[in-house]
């Protein structure tokens, strides 16, 4: 993360100790699984197929616009011709393929979905935007449903552009904000109804009322047709915190982004998970009392760098702050996964919360 942490070693170790209590004491008094309050609205842009805006209490604000355009499907370059298409493989696919979708199943392509993230003061090939869009893309693609729904006929498909604008300088890691906004925007996204048939050039009903939702709401699909959400989780000692603030990120042992989607059984499934390099690793370590040249110059003057190192090492971040080393234990990871996916766990809570927005 580009922006540097404005906290002193003392502050860092204070935060760390208070957060590693059980239960952890968060600076803003939230419970470990609690999210920060936010204001949200959808369908704010006439020119887009779907849109949403979310504003966090700390003023960070994001707008997402979804636009769908018809595009001619191109034959893959370098591909082989018909002869090979014959021995296409088993059409296994997911267990729960409903009729209406089945003919499209497996026909969608990754490149039909394009996510672009703009963050003020950053070029779009800076690491943060790239990382974020990669994370959101793989979450959306992981359930084949979405891209399959983009299939129109063998010659044409929808191209879905998701443009994500962060309107404010990234105060904290903007991932949750962007993910939630995207979720809302996609839920509200509508696609014109197709009136042409089969492989002829597609014709659409220009009546907006007739348009269908990209994530169908009617019927038994209800359960499975929700875009995924990506949550940011950090671990500090034994504690696990959701939607961490910047300060909390600055002292965490590990951070990970975990994307969940609703699966048929109304339960949640993990569709993507990746660890994030926590900014805490770049923080400055504190100076142990024994090494404090101002308090006891006599002692420190004689010390060679090697000896100083030894003393630091011995301290092991007990008395003063030391940037975390190593990674995270498997036990914690599986605990996090559980907290997210379990029935009425954090994941469901969040999705339910967002569902309320459209009302």
């Amino acid at each position, binding site marked *: 993360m580009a922006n540097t942490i404005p906290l002193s070693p003392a502050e860092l170790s204070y935060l760390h100790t208070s957060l590693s209590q059980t239960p952890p004491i968060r600076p803003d008094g939230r419970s470990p699984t609690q999210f920060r309050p936010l204001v949200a609205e959808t369908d704010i842009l006439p020119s887009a197929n779907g849109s949403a805006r979310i504003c966090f209490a700390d003023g960070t604000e994001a707008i997402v616009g979804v636009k769908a355009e018809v595009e001619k499907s191109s034959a893959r370059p*370098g591909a*082989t011709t018909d002869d090979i298409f014959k021995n296409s493989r*088993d059409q296994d696919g997911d267990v729960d393929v409903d009729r209406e979708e089945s003919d499209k199943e*497996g026909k969608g392509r990754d490149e039909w979905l394009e996510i672009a993230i703009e963050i003020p003061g950053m070029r779009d090939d800076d690491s943060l935007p790239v990382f974020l869009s990669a994370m959101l893309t793989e979450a959306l693609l992981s359930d084949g449903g979405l891209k399959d729904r983009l299939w129109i006929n063998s010659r044409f498909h929808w191209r879905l552009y998701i443009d994500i604008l962060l309107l404010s300088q990234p105060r904290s890691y903007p991932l949750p904000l962007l993910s939630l906004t995207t979720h809302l925007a996609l839920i509200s996204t509508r696609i014109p109804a197709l009136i042409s048939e089969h492989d002829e050039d597609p014709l659409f009903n220009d009546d907006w009322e007739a348009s269908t939702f990209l994530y169908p709401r009617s019927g038994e699909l209800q359960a499975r047709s929700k875009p995924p959400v990506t949550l940011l989780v950090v671990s500090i000692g034994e504690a696990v915190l959701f939607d961490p603030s910047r300060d909390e990120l600055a002292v965490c042992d590990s951070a990970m982004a975990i994307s969940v989607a609703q699966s048929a059984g109304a339960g949640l499934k993990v569709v993507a998970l*990746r660890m994030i390099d926590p900014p805490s690793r770049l923080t400055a370590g504190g100076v142990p009392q024994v090494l404090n040249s101002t308090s006891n110059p006599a002692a420190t003057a004689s010390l060679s760098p090697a000896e100083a190192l030894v003393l630091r090492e011995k301290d092991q971040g007990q008395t003063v702050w030391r940037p975390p080393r*190593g990674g995270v234990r*498997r036990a914690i990871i599986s605990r996090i*996964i559980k907290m997210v996916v379990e029935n009425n766990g954090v994941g469901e809570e969040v999705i339910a919360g967002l569902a309320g927005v459209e009302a």
Partner: protein
Amino acid sequence: MQADRRRVNAPPGGTTPPVFATPSNTPIARPVRSRQPDEHRKIFLRTGFVPSASGSAYYEIPPETTSQSKTLLIPSSSSLKITCTVHGPRPLPRNAAFSPNLLLSTHVKFAPFATRSRKGYVRDSSERDLGMHLESALRGVVIGERWPKSGCEVVITVLEGEEDGWWGDAQGAEKSGGWGMMGVLAGCITVASAALMDAGIDCVDMVSGGVAALASDERGNGTRIVLDPSPSEHDIKAACVVGYLQSRDEITEMWMKGNAGVQTEALIDEAVKAAVMTRSVLGEAVKESVELKANHTDRNVKEKGSANDVTMTG
């Protein structure tokens, strides 16, 4: 018609990769996994092939020669060739601010000829993303505070990348792809780790990469978990890469894609197994180079010898 003014450009007409048609009389079969589900492909790893760099390493998973590789121009099974050089610790660039720790930066680039469809010269988002993954894998390992106000670049060139799927498979590239990338990442983690050792930068452990995948079981339906999957051999549903520290049983980097459902944790455990296997190779390679250097230096003390004759083992 936007020509790159820093390179020799393609003819203005623009070119397309060849399209192949297989005569129907020559059958083409998807390569089948010959090794056990929990068996890793052979890994070749060497360090110190770029003497001018602080550290360097070369990583290779040689392709398995199938019957078709002789008859067909198109490679049926995929392989992996990765080089890595480490420069540093060295002074930070002029514009950089003071940093109390080692600023480790990673850079992953595919060679234009590394994949079936030609790669561009500038890093695309997937390559940048790979770099980020690697960064989080390595930053957890190096003891940064021992290297104040200095930087360290880890540069990786992928000469040959894992396939995303089976070329003959009409849907291969269309099903949610990027499986190859995960194999590449595992390789990057291991090779970078070796190069860091070679550079002599303090690390809490030797991090090694491992992949496992949840693939549909070729024999009958259902799924099974396989180590070190070669995407061309499997129909992958979900996969997981880890950067694993064996001695502390910790994970510095994890990347999971697809829906593993209830098997999620099993998948992670398998990936860790794979990482443990690569670690042994890593250990061997590093030991070897250490011995080599040790003898070399005290030989240098005795009779002066050119620095060139013993390196270049890769």
